[in-house]
């Protein structure tokens, strides 16, 4: 029990209030009392609650397996300084920094986060965070649709299918039409194809992900050129933020909006969340940005200060006319990412990103050396790639799981035309021993599986 009240406290307070009992004071209007007992487990003393949760955590064998899963959630090294600093009381138990005088810590940190997002994407402005990459996509679509006045967007089928599904959910409700650009031969979009050009016509946004869902680096500049000629905005989705350490920025490629996920910067995969969505854009769209923005100003004594600004766009002021309904965002996750970026710096980020590329290439080479495995694409990639197995990917994954490996993601779940395709990921944490052990086991399993047929 966390409330501090002793019986005496309660009695004294009821006296001041002039209420006969706690029950009567808190009771709902007549007729609304709960009639049946709740289906809720009885309270556990704290040490047993701890043990119970330890048991649940222990029952997740997947958390201990050697993993080659990526596809929107990436296992990277988290410098211990990151959680140590971010989980200080003063950060985790503060509310949204509405009272500037009492919140300079959070406000400056958000300002620094906004700056990092701008520096990484090359764009002009960025907000205080969004729920995650997939909802950031929805917000980006709304921005583009409002900027262009068009209720139609064109999105590459090489964008994370989970992101596209979220967009579909919202688009249906919002009455926005979503057209999809086909997956090209090399698992990326052919921006020069006539079909793509046709699909883009009349759209308010052309949306590509790079590196895309298959790990391939897309021709964002090509997409931007196409979008521009069609009067659409270019939105670059970035799901593996680590790639920003080395890849051309969205701004360099001509994107108007960059959005996506920064989980890779210091946040655990955590069975899906919380992560931290980001969005950045060129100056002219600043008033269309969703959610909070922190700006630099000064106080009455002339000291530099930070403060929430352009609140006139937000729901608590503008209600149904707000640029978005978002209120609570991912401030603490953005703080994790900010501290991560501060800790690794340019030097660290580039070297970690490079190590990702190195390990992914080592993994890919080792996997392709296993008899029966074939490549799916020769496009340039960051830390993910697709291979074809000589048996259904689902079966192979199941076999490897029994050996305590999470081999990759079965693409047939979203692309029925790819029954044997496995999306694999390596990061700086993928050791050479992991790769060797995995490919050894893989060869055996493929052998056994084929023999069994």
């Amino acid at each position, binding site marked *: *029990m966390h409330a501090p009240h002793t019986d005496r406290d*309660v009695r004294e307070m009821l006296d001041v*209030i002039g209420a006969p009992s706690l029950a009567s*004071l*808190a009771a709902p209007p007549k007729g609304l009392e*709960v009639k049946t007992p*709740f289906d*809720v487990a009885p*309270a*556990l003393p704290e040490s047993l*609650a701890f043990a119970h949760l330890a048991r*649940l955590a*222990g029952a997740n064998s*997947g958390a201990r397996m050697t993993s080659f899963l990526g596809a929107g959630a990436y296992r990277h090294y988290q410098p211990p*300084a990151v*959680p140590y600093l971010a989980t*200080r009381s003063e950060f985790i*138990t*503060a*509310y*949204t*920094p509405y009272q500037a*005088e009492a919140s300079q*810590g*959070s406000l400056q*940190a958000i300002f*620094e986060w906004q700056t990092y997002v701008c*520096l990484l994407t090359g764009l002009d402005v960025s907000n205080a965070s969004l*729920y995650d990459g997939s*909802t950031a996509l929805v917000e980006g679509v709304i921005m583009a649709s409002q900027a262009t006045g068009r209720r139609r967007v064109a999105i590459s089928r090489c964008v994370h299918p*989970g992101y596209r*599904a*979220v967009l579909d*959910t*919202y688009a249906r*409700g919002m009455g926005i039409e979503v057209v999809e650009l086909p997956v090209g031969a090399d698992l990326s979009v052919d921006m020069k194809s006539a079909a793509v050009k046709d699909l883009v016509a009349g759209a308010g946004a052309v949306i590509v992900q790079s590196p895309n869902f298959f790990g391939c*680096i897309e021709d964002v500049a090509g997409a931007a050129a196409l979008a521009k000629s069609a009067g659409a905005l270019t939105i670059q989705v970035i799901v593996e933020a680590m790639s*920003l350490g*080395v*890849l*051309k920025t969205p701004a360099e490629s001509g994107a108007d909006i960059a959005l996506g996920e920064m989980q890779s910067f210091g946040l655990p*995969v955590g069975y*899906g*969340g919380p992560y931290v969505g980001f969005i950045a854009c060129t100056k002219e769209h600043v008033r269309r940005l969703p959610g909070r923005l922190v700006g630099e*100003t000064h106080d*009455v004594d002339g000291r530099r*200060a930070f403060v929430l*600004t352009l609140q006139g766009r937000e729901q608590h002021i503008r209600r149904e006319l707000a640029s978005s*309904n*978002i*209120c*609570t*965002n991912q401030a*603490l996750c953005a703080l994790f990412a900010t501290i991560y970026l*501060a*800790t690794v710096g*340019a030097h660290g980020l580039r*070297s970690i990103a490079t190590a990702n590329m*190195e390990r992914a290439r080592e993994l890919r080479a080792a996997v392709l050396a296993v008899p029966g495995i074939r490549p799916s694409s020769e496009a340039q990639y960051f830390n993910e790639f697709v291979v074809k197995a000589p048996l259904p990917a689902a079966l192979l994954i199941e076999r490897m*799981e029994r050996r305590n490996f999470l081999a990759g993601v079965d693409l047939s779940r979203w692309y029925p035309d790819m029954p044997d395709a496995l999306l694999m990921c390596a990061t700086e944490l993928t050791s050479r021993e992991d790769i060797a052990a995995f490919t050894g086991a893989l060869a055996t399993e493929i052998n056994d599986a084929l023999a069994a047929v």
Partner: protein
Amino acid sequence: MLSLLFDQGEPGRGSDFVAPAGKPEDYLSAGLLRAGLPLPDLAEFEVTRHFVALSHRNFSVDTNFYPLGSCTMKYNPKLNEAVAAFPGFADLHPYAPDDAAQGALEMMWTLERTLSSLFGMEAFSLMPCAGAHGEVTAMLMAKAYHRERGDEKRVTCIVPDTAHGTNPASAAMVGYKVVSIPSTPQGRTDIGALRAALDDTVAVCMMTNPNTLGLFEDDIVEMTKAVHDAGGLMYYDGANANAIVGLCRPGDMGFDLMHLNLHKTFSVPHGGGGPGAGPVGASARLAPYLPAPRVVKDAGGVFSLRASDAKSIGPVRVFASHFIALVRAYAYIIVHGAEGLRRNSELAVLNANYVRAKVKDILTVPYSDHCRHEFVCSAEVLKKETGARALDLAKGLLDAGIHAPTMYWPHVVPECLMIEPTETETKETLDEFVEVLRALVKQAHDDPASMQELPLHTYVRRVDEAQVGRLANKGIGLRWTGEK
């Protein structure tokens, strides 16, 4: 004044995190690479000093009484933080096969069942990331429900004028026309006005209960019935659920949809503005529309993530939930049980009424009945008498190390301060708060001019919000640029 990160460091500072792996050009063609990476290189020590110093510039629940109305700034037990960090949770990939994630799925399943029981709903989706995300999820469900029934004329959403801004904003996001309902002098939604607004275009009515004045909507069952009779759905904004857990249930009141803010009622820390978790509950007829995936349990006791139901609106985020936030809420629930949760709600109501009873002597407390978990008071009279505003009182509280109440909302009360002490504060703290407030009101009478100078002792004093807004409109001042 604390330098920005970008004005610190020197190129080359910092630790090595990985073994050397060559250069980017070893792996990718030069044309794909970025021109530069203008982030500062800092030693870990610089980073540590920076963020510890920043932390000292924040008020927070662990350091300050934080009676911020509508936000339920209760204590966040440290057990929650410890279990949330278990590697068995933190290192679990969202695409891990179900059989390798049974503990996580069991937790989610149990949490869903528990919330359903506590709030009288058929089912919950744990997917939404925050309250507003829950709201828009519910609006999408409402829209899908009406569409499914071919009832496409329903385009309005009814929202009381005291509602939180996210309510109308969420409704607008799915294209609903928002109709605002005024409040009665008793601080309740005007049921007459509501009835008058009802017609066959009404898709849904969003009610907050207790409402943002901290009052129970006494006519809630009648309102529910009226909306239902008109073919609309009822949505329960559960942001204020801390007043009702274990005491009454939105499902019993007839609601079709609701959301909870686990970061309010269920002790997930606010994190300086998030992350939260905003599960959406649905009655039997709306449950099929809940977002997918959800956790199911088979006859053998095995849990799995069911990808989608036929009628589901689909996913509202890419992965199944803010899982690590759910772990915290779950930990909170299991150490309390239904009885403990109910008692917390009762004590939240007790604390609010206790402060209210004492503040009555100091400021105007506009509504006559007992409040629920929070109450509003008004500095209008004080302003007339002295010129001091609610804002000035709020800033004065900061000087005493007390976070300001929510100010100037709901708009129906002029010079409004919304005070929510929560159940985790001691009587001693509440008494102290009242005395500080009393002293400030006295100061306003004794030396009105001094009030505008407050706060005096915070890291910065009142800030210039006008100038920053003007520049921000042009995209200026929203990031470090290196210019002085």
